């Protein structure tokens, strides 16, 4: 992920490489939990449901 060409290609796509510690099973799991905690209150406060 640190290869300059990879970084450049992603930059052209306006995308980013995730931090190295997130390109791991535990990194994904931790981020998923954090995102559930971040968005849950925002969505519930708006009172929207998709089902």
């Amino acid at each position: 992920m640190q290869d300059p060409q990879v970084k450049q290609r992603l930059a052209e796509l306006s995308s980013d490489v995730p931090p190295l510690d997130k390109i791991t099973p535990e990194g994904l799991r931790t981020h998923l939990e954090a995102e559930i905690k971040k968005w849950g209150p925002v969505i519930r406060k708006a009172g929207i449901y998709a089902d």
Partner: protein
Amino acid sequence: MRATFKRWLTAGLAGLTLAAAGSVSAQGTFPDKPIVLVVPFAAGGPTDVVARMIAIPMGRALGQSVLVENTVGAGGTIASQRVARAAPNGHTIYIHHMGMATATALYKKLSFDPLKDFEYIGQVVDVPMTMLARKDFPANNLQELLAYIKANKDKVSLANAGLGAVSHLCGLLFQTQIEVDLNTIPYKGTGPAMNDLLGGQVDLLCDQTTQTVPMIKEGRVKVYGVTSLKRLGALPNVPTLDEQGLKGFEVKVWHGMYAPKGTPQPVIEKSTAPCVPPCRTPK
């Protein structure tokens, strides 16, 4: 695992530009049939583009085809359910974005648990977003936008690509942070929402840079800021919303790769990280 996955991802992404990854014979008996990479959204959309970026070098590295399967519907939850119930044999891999997290709040009844029913492989690509307005909208920067919204909030419309779409989530976070409820207009997908922004029928839209950077560069929309905490290489002159005063405002469309719960770790490793030196980036 960690090192091998990174190595595979490096090689995979490099394969995009270099198309040089050599084929490697499968180790042992796995994979003995094609691997299905499940994508929860339609072909041609942003998530599908990311998936197909990954599928080609992944298949090349494995010496087996990787079939992208678009299992569409219910904001990605149909695909998540399909993967949660798939045989945990390593032949089913899943890529999903932040919708994996937001489904737990958006749906009262989910037939799967994002925190219990999957094996986690890793995050792959982050796509930031941009806050846009129609070209002739009066406000020229974020401060003017906030002042305009304060004075005209009943008149300002905010588009999104549908309930639970990332544009909807970005808009929700924006409204939460500025403590204003705007007139939200849902569309069926990013395409129609962007079309109406370009046509001037709707005022504001927050959408992924993969969709918006060309419009910004061509001057077809106004841009107030990016939703990352750092400026983007592709848009060096566009400030972040955070640096303009919306402290901590950050929305990244992050993508994760998963497999059904119970998929043996060595199989996960083989299915995603078999890349040995021949397919590392040539120097």
